[in-house]
Structure formats: C-alpha cells, structure tokens
C-alpha cells in the first residue's frame, strides 16, 4: 500500500502520530544508550551476573504460576456464566469484573493486612503471605478478570451450529467440549493471557510489597537504593526483551487463527446446560472467588478503617486525591487527544506509517512501566533536564504509556461510523476537518469518553511511573497505599485504598452501563 500522498498529508493527523512515535521510541533508545555506558569488562560483568538468571527464573516462574491460577479461576467462571443455568448471572459476571477495580498493590495489601496476629482473619491463624506465594495469589486475584472477560465473550460468540454439527457426527458432549469448543477459545485465551503476562512482567507494587525479587523489583532497588544506573538500565532492557518475546510468541500463536462465524444471518442462541449434581460445587466456587477477589479487599479496608483513623489523615487523603487527579485528568485528556488521530489514520487512511504509529502506541503500553519511566528519566536528564521531576513529564508519561487503552474504543467506533457520513458533510460544503468534527465526531463521543475514563483510571492506579517521575512533594493515592503498606501501617493505608477502590468501581460501573 502506498504511503499517503502529499495532498493527503494533514499536519493535524500526522503531527500527533509523529509525537507518539517520538515520545515512545526516543526515551527507549536512551535506555540502550545508557546501558552501554561503561567499559566492556564492566558491562560483561553486569550482563553475565548470576543474579540475572535468578531474576529471570523468578519472573518467568511467577508469570507461569499466575497464568495457571487465573486460568483455574477464569475458565470455570466463564463457563458457568456462558453455558450453564446458574442463577444470578449478572451478579456472577460482576464478581468476575470487580477485581479490576482493585489495584494489585491493594490486593497485596489486603492479603497482608487481613492475615497475621492483628488482621481480620486472625482467628484462622493463617501465615502472612509473602514471597512467591504472596505475589502469586495477589496477582492472580486481581488479573483473572482479563481472562474471564475474554473467555466469556468468546463462549457467548461461538456458533452453536458447530456443536450441533459435531454431535450429529457422533461426538459426545465431553468430546464436543474438548474438540470443538476449547480449540475455538484459543484466541481469547491468548489475548487474555498476554494481558495478564504483561501485567505480571510490569508489576511493581505487588512484588515489592511481597518482597519477591523479579526484574521490576530489582530495577527499582538498583535505581532507588543502589543508585547503579547502568545496571538498572540493563535490567530494564532485559525486562523489555522478555516483554518482546511474549508479544512475538502471542503473534506466532495467533497467526492464521480467525474463528469468526462463517455463516450468514444471526446465530441461534446456545441452550444452557443444567448444573445438576454440580450445583453445590458451582455456587461454592463462585462464592469462593467472590470472597477472595472482592469481599476480602473491601472488608479488610473497612476493618482497618474501623480501628480508627488518626487526626490529620483526612487532609492528607484529600491532598493525595487532588495530586492524583492533577496528573491523571490531564493525562486522560492528552492520551485521548493523541489516540484520536492515530486511530483515525489507521482506520481511514491505512498505510504503513499509520500502522506503525498505532503499533508504537501499543509498544508504549506493553513496555513495563518501570522500564518506561527509567527510559524517560535517562532521556530528560540527558536532553531536557528542565523536564525532570516536572508534572508535565509525569502527565506525558501516563499519556504515552496508557494511550493504547483509548485507541481501542475509538478504533471500534470509527469502524462503525459510516465513511459516507463524512463524505456527505464534505458534499454539503465542509472542509475535511470540519466534516470530521460535524459528521463523525459526534458519533465518537461515547467512545472518547470511555477511552478517557480508562486512561484516567489506569493513571490513577499507576504506581511505578508515579514513583520515579513524580515532582518533589507529589504524593498520589497509590503512593499512599504502597508507602504505608510497605511499612505494615495497615490502618494508615486503608483510607487511600478505599478511595482508590471506590473511584475505580464507580468508573468501571459507568463504563459497563454505557457499554
């Protein structure tokens, strides 16, 4: 496909796209630049350290473990909702979505604060989780919704005619599930699994609270405690390559797999199979998931709030809330403003530069936040020191890192908005830009709002980027939870966690109602 010809060149489309490409790629190149500072012997020593291998083992082990745990939760839950006659499906679905509103470090905090001698569950004499087990449980409990939502959508989208066909060819129910249904769920599983793997790789809050050494945690320690910038850069590069491998793996696995319904007309709805003797275990399972994923964090926070909040904490809380919003709101607006032209180019003017701009935005999203923040630090210290530790840089970092979340909804809305609408507006005397704003833009409003809400929510919850890039004296809600929880000041952390969960729940609820 040819590059857009000169007469199609419009600065207001390509300007933002270029900005995104530069904003993501230039800092990452500084990471490489920084990593290769120092003499060869020193570099070899850094790269070939035994510790790196342990970090790799820990990181991969945690990723694999979390994938297993989330599958064990998400598969049965999705099946129950999509294929059985279980009662209260909207409620069960909600249980599968709500953990999204609980940031990982809040989940870790809930696990730590509910156990131990003074916790909510002290009567059960549970050991306080830490290390691999703690990180595994916290990450699994808060990331399984990504897999659940993907699997549920895939199950609901399956063509029941295929299963009927298999049965008419002599397959039993069990065989149909194994040979017809499961293979069709593969793309959904890979998509959800990739999101979870990226979260685990990029996670900092959980592993640091659980004191489990993965790449992210080690980068932080090197940067914050040891001040070894070159080694921190190397660790970030290793983490980045690991992320790259995941992305490539996913692409390889998904290549050529498109399982859309091929027939025409609207599909029949699937009949729901009765639970029968599985009724009790099914409800038990749902109850357990709800207890662990939703009830535990909420009740822990409420429990510690009930033990009293010191005076002065409320004003700290308010200022943390305002600090969080002062960065997350502009970031949401900026990310959406950048996402609109990038999505527009890729949908309406497909060409390789347009595709590249979109890919780069997704690359920024997949880049582990610590690595991205570190890259931005190296870049600003070297080339734009006045930006270092400025609110502007923090906002830009949020926007570049999370804009992919805004591209998604805008993209699908653009696909649905008829091209002819814009042509009709041109035909009635509007310039291309006005035709877009008067014809197409009104149809995108809902999606732009959704994209903005998603970015706002992510920026609000974001911990490592905030840590490394926040201006002096800046203290967000996320930093409030993490700071207190890492010192086992559970009652101090509780109000921050509550505000975060409440805001997230409200926004998620709003998004679900609109969807």
């Amino acid at each position, binding site marked *: 496909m040819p590059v857009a010809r000169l007469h199609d060149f419009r600065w207001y489309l390509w300007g933002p796209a270029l900005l995104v490409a530069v904003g993501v790629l230039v800092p990452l190149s500084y990471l490489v630049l920084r990593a290769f500072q120092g003499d060869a012997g020193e570099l070899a020593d850094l790269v070939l350290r035994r510790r790196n291998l342990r970090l790799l083992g820990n990181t991969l082990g945690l990723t694999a473990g979390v994938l297993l745990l989330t599958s064990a939760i998400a598969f049965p839950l999705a099946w129950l909702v999509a294929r059985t006659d279980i009662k209260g499906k909207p409620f069960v679905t909600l249980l599968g979505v709500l953990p999204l509103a609980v940031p990982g470090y809040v989940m870790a905090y809930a696990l730590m604060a509910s156990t131990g001698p003074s916790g909510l569950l002290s009567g059960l004499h549970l050991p306080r989780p830490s290390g691999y087990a703690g990180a595994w449980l916290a990450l699994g409990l808060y990331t399984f919704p990504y897999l659940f939502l993907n699997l549920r959508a895939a199950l609901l989208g399956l063509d029941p005619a295929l299963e009927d066909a298999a049965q008419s060819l002599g397959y039993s129910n069990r065989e149909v599930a194994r040979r017809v249904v499961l293979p069709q769920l593969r793309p959904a599983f890979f998509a959800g699994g990739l999101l979870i793997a990226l979260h685990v790789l990029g996670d900092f809050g959980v592993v640091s609270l659980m004191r489990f050494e993965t790449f992210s945690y080690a980068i932080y320690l090197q940067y914050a405690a040891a001040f070894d910038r070159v080694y921190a850069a190397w660790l970030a590069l290793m983490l980045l390559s690991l992320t790259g491998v995941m992305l490539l793996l996913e692409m390889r696995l998904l290549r050529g797999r498109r399982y859309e319904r091929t027939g025409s007309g609207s599909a029949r709805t699937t009949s729901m199979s009765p639970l029968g003797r599985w009724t009790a275990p099914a409800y038990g399972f749902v109850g357990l998931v709800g207890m662990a994923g939703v009830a535990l964090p909420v009740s822990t926070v409420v429990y510690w709030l009930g033990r009293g909040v010191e005076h002065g904490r409320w004003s700290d809380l308010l200022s943390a809330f305002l600090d969080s919003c002062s960065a997350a709101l502009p970031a949401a607006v900026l990310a959406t403003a950048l996402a609109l032209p990038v999505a527009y180019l890729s949908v309406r003017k497909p060409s390789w530069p347009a595709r590249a701009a979109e890919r780069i935005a997704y690359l920024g999203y997949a880049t582990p936040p610590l690595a991205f923040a570190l890259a931005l630090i190296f870049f600003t210290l070297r080339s734009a020191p006045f930006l270092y530790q400025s609110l502007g840089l923090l906002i830009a970092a949020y926007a570049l890192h999370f804009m992919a979340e805004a591209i998604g909804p805008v993209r699908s809305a653009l696909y649905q908005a008829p091209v002819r609408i814009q042509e*009709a507006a041109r035909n009635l005397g509007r310039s291309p830009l006005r035709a877009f704003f008067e014809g197409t833009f009104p149809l995108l409003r809902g999606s732009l709002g959704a994209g903005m809400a998603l970015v706002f929510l992510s920026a609000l919850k974001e911990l490592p980027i905030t840590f490394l890039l926040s201006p002096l004296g800046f203290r967000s809600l996320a930093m409030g939870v993490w700071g207190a929880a890492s010192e086992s000041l559970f009652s101090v952390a509780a109000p921050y966690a509550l505000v975060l969960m409440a805001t997230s729940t409200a926004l998620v609820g709003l998004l679900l109602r609109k969807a």
Partner: protein
Amino acid sequence: MRNGDFPRPLRTTHYEIGHTLHCTINPLLTISCLSKTFSDGVLPVVNELSFEVEDGELFALLGPSGCGKTTVLRLIGGFMRPNHGSISFDGRLFAGDGSFVPPEKRGIGFVFQDYALFPHLAVAQNVAFGLRKEKAAVRKERTDEVLKLVGMEGFEDRLPHALSGGQQQRVALARALAPRPRLLLLDEPFSNLDAYFRNEMRDNIRAILKEEGITAVLVTHDQEEAMVFADRLGVMQGGRVDQIGTPEEIYLTPRTLFVAQFMGQTNLVLTHADGATADSVLGKLTLHRPAEGMVLVAVRPEHFTIAPTADHPDAMEATVLSRSFKGHDITYRVQVGPVDCLVHTHNREPFAPGDTVFIRAVEPAVVLDKAGE
C-alpha cells in the same frame, strides 16, 4: 452564488427534436477520458471514459455491479482523484491538469446509496446542514420548503433511526436539494426500497428534479429504472461506456452484444447479411442498417408475431417448447430449425408445448458491432 437564486435553466428542446442527437450542444458537465486505477489494483476501474450532460438533463449510468459506475459518480463528487482525464462543470475545471477542487467547493448535491444521514441530527438539522452560511430565517424557510417538496413536513424533529427506508431517502434527497445545487448525483438511491415503493419514489423524484430544473446523474444496475428515470443513459461495462443514447435508442438499437443482452431478453442470431436483409434461421430479416458478410443480429422477443397458421410468406414454422404466462403477456420458447427463439405475445391463443406455430419478425433486426470494434 451557490446558495443564491439561480434563474430556472432554459429547457433545452433537442430531445423533442429527435432521439438520434448524440452530441449535446451546451454541456453542463463534461467528463473526458477519465481513468481511475485503485492503488491495489492493476486494471483500471474507470477506463478512458467520456460523456457530457446537458443542463437540465437527467442522465443515468447503467451497468452491472463492478462496472465502475459508482466510481465515476464519486469522481464527479470529488471523493476521489482521477488518475487521468478531466471533469469540468459549468466552465470550471473540477479535476484534471493537476488541479483538483475538493468536494466541499464543488456545490454538487449527492444522494448516497445508504443515505448517510447524520444519525445524531434530527431531520430538520440534517436538511439544514448544507445551509449554514444562510441567515437563520432563510435556513428555516428553505428547510421547510424542501421538506414539503419531498413530502416530509411534520418529521422535522425525528431522528433518522426513527424513519423508514423511504422516509430516510426523501430526507437525504431534501438535504441534497436544500443548497440548490445545479447538479445532483444519485448513487443507486432506490435499491434499498421495496419494489412497490421504489417506482413511486422514482416517479416522485423525477418530477421534483424536472420541476426544479435540476441536472442529475443517476447510477443504477436496474435497466428499467434507468430507462424510466433518465432522458439519456450510458451503458457501462468494465470501466467503459459501451453506448450512450436515449432509452429508446439503447433498447431498440443496441450497439454491442453486451448492451443488447443487458437491456433485456433478446434473440441473437449469427447470420449472413446481404445489404439491407439477411436470410437467417429465423427467416428473412430486415436489417436496421445495411451490412455485408457474417454479422450478429439481435431481435427482441416482442418483435416477433406468433400465429397458428402461415399468414405471411416470410413466416417460419416452429414448435412450441415451453410457455410462461406472466399476466400481461406470454413468453413462448419455440424451436425454429436448430435454434431456440423467445417470443412475447399478447395473443391469448393458448398454444401448448408441442404445437406447431408460425413466427415472423415484424421489426428490423439490429446488427451488432463485432467484438472489439
């Protein structure tokens, strides 16, 4: 100027003078040697296409799907740039010679196949969309006027999704007419309507356009629609125009095999021409133009008579193969010597398969151009 009051264009009269006039005297729209190749394609979608449209004329581009007719319309509208050739309108060069007028500067009305009404705007807002430079009072007046013209008064505050297909279509027409364009482009505007409503809308719109003196180019794949709607039409195939003419010319004297077949059922015979006549397997045929040697001729089924007895020296004996009763007429498939022949007749005489009948061509057979000519 665009939104101002145009003097009603003078009615041109050459249609009444004769149907054989091919060259327009004073074209409003001139398409010349127009070509368009899509970036991913090798073959041109529009290939060296030329035609002219007279002021006040209703012109139809007719062809099967994929023949490039919609592309031509979109090129005229300015939604695409041609690779070669030029488009000029009322003395202005719209495209060609390196110049290109964007769609918003062309002042041409466009009625889209799927109407493309703005889903977020009510009917009146949709119609007023092209009138933003007018004063509010003028805008309101014109909106009411065109809505009345298309019979949609009272629907001003409805949103498009609350309208039926036919109503949406009328709003789309009103929206395109509101800025008083001199040229209106219609892209298969009737194809989304059901058959009964389609005829009514077509006659309605034709009447409105004629009354307002608006020039229009209609794109369609339905030959009946093109013939009823248009003053002149161009039959397209593979990005080219095979023939341009009045509906009568095109139907009665198709120039090529494609046009003959596309315009309706026809009987084709390869025969030896001998000046003004040809002795064919279907009997002695008078030719519509003199020819010599082997030629392909076409005779429409209704240009035959069918009778139980040989009532004319040129009548050919035939055997009835099948009979389809269609209400207003009957189509017989008969065998004449080695070939099949279709005959339409109003004759109520009930021939049955197997009957012996006599057929005779009562109109001249049309000599078709040889392929590649």
